[in-house]
């Protein structure tokens, strides 16, 4: 997938998600989820994909189970009942269908996110005429995550010797303030300074911005993108309209 232009992957992922969502068939969702995991295995990121997806999906599945299956009143095939709890086959099927649909969506998007070259995606967005601010914000946010973690570690050390820690709500509130305030102050101060220098380096530039390194978008891939997206759009309209399903 890394060899493809970032937009091709994006078009494929978006189409898959849209069709799965519109079709709302458990077997399609299951097939898409399995395919995403298989593709990740080929790309060598199956373990990361599974871990990330599990963290996202576990609470969601639990919630879906409670909302649809545990207290179901409509279903007729009762499997288990105790007090307010009433587990039915229909409720379980509804929760399972929703769970699989969500899993397919999460797996496909995460697969794209893990396999795409993010720098190339931002370059492609810049080249496609998306305002330069967008690329800057996305790239800067991703770069700030490790920088902020480092800063938080440094602040933690500096404050440890000023009396953080202790028990009770007051001590925890104090230590939260002790770390949050310098973090926010320093981060905003940095942002204010950097904005001056961004302007002094000509950011955001005008319509005639150029690119030092650009990503090739071959004609064949462009055609593929258009085809995939149109097919998906047609399928979604057909599947999702109330009389289509």
């Amino acid at each position, binding site marked *: 997938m890394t060899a493809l232009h970032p937009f091709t992957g994006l078009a494929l992922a978006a189409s898959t998600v849209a069709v799965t*969502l*519109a079709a*709302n068939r458990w077997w399609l969702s299951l097939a898409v989820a399995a395919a995403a995991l298989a593709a990740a295995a080929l790309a060598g990121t199956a373990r990361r994909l599974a871990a*990330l997806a599990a963290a*996202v999906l576990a*609470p*969601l599945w*639990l*919630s*879906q189970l*409670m*909302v649809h299956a545990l*207290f179901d*009143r*409509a279903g007729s095939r009762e499997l288990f009942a105790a007090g*307010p709890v009433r587990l039915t086959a229909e409720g379980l*099927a*509804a*929760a399972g269908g*929703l769970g699989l*649909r*969500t899993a397919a*969506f*999460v797996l496909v*998007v995460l697969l794209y*996110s893990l396999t795409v070259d993010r720098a190339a995606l931002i370059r492609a967005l810049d080249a496609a005429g998306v*305002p330069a*601010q*967008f690329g800057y*914000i*996305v790239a*800067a*946010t*991703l770069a*700030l995550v490790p920088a*902020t973690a480092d800063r*938080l570690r440094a602040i933690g050390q500096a404050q440890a010797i000023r009396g953080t820690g202790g028990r009770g709500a007051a001590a*925890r509130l104090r*230590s*939260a303030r002790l*770390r*949050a*305030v310098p*973090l*926010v*102050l320093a*981060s*905003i*101060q*940095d*942002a*204010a300074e*950097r904005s001056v220098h*961004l302007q002094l380096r000509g*950011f*955001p530039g005008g319509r005639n911005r150029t690119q030092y390194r650009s990503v090739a978008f071959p004609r064949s891939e462009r055609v593929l993108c258009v085809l995939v997206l149109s097919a998906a759009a047609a399928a979604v309209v057909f599947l*999702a*309209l*109330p009389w289509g*399903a």
Partner: protein
Amino acid sequence: MSTSLTLPATGGATPLRARLLPLLGAALIAATYLMLVLLQPTEAAAGLASWPAVTAFAGYLAGAVLLLAGVLPQLPTTVVALIPVGLVLNIVLGQFVGSTLVPLYLDSIGTVLVGFLAGRSAGAATGVLGSLVWSLFNPTVLPFAAGAAVIGLLAGSAARLGALRPYVAVVAGIITGIVAGVVSAPVAAFVYGGTSGAATGAIVAMFRAMGDSLLASVTKQALISDPADKAVAFLVASLLVLALPRRIRLQFPLPARAAARRAKA
């Protein structure tokens, strides 16, 4: 070099695009919500029909992106540099305050902070951008972009009306929580058929057991947890803004405008 070193005295007027697109986006979000509420699907035993899911997902996301496309090119660079900080603070402060203090989400402190410092459009843009960026790690936030935009927008409006005083911030947070919760409920109900956590899921299940429809249950649950969550987020953000020194605060549009108004008065 013949090009002039200075800019013409009168600043260019906002292009039509910048005014039209956000309105169009807001209209699309409102229309999506109305459509979902008015044509609320009946629940068959076999599960939900799929059109509400597609409509909620596509309508909200497209509306949010339109909003962003109109707003983004107009933002001053000071604000553009601030937004990434807001997005990271959303995550960091959320985890941090959330893990040490209260069992709430608090994933919007950064968005509220940007709204307080840079105004409505910047706040809304931050909400949308946050959903887009963090969907790289947690795709389920993607369709909630519209709700996040509402939070940033209302934070900006609240700051104009003086929400920087802590007790006003709490009230503004509660109102924002109500609006954002109502706007986001269809996504939780129709796209996911549940909420993002076990505790909130239990509340929804309770309303369902009492006979409410799915959308009504999710909306009621949102009305219980969101106002509290946003009240805390607004309070924390307002305290953080107050902790900022004047010199830094005045570099951002809203405090600068307020100071100019005070100077005139």
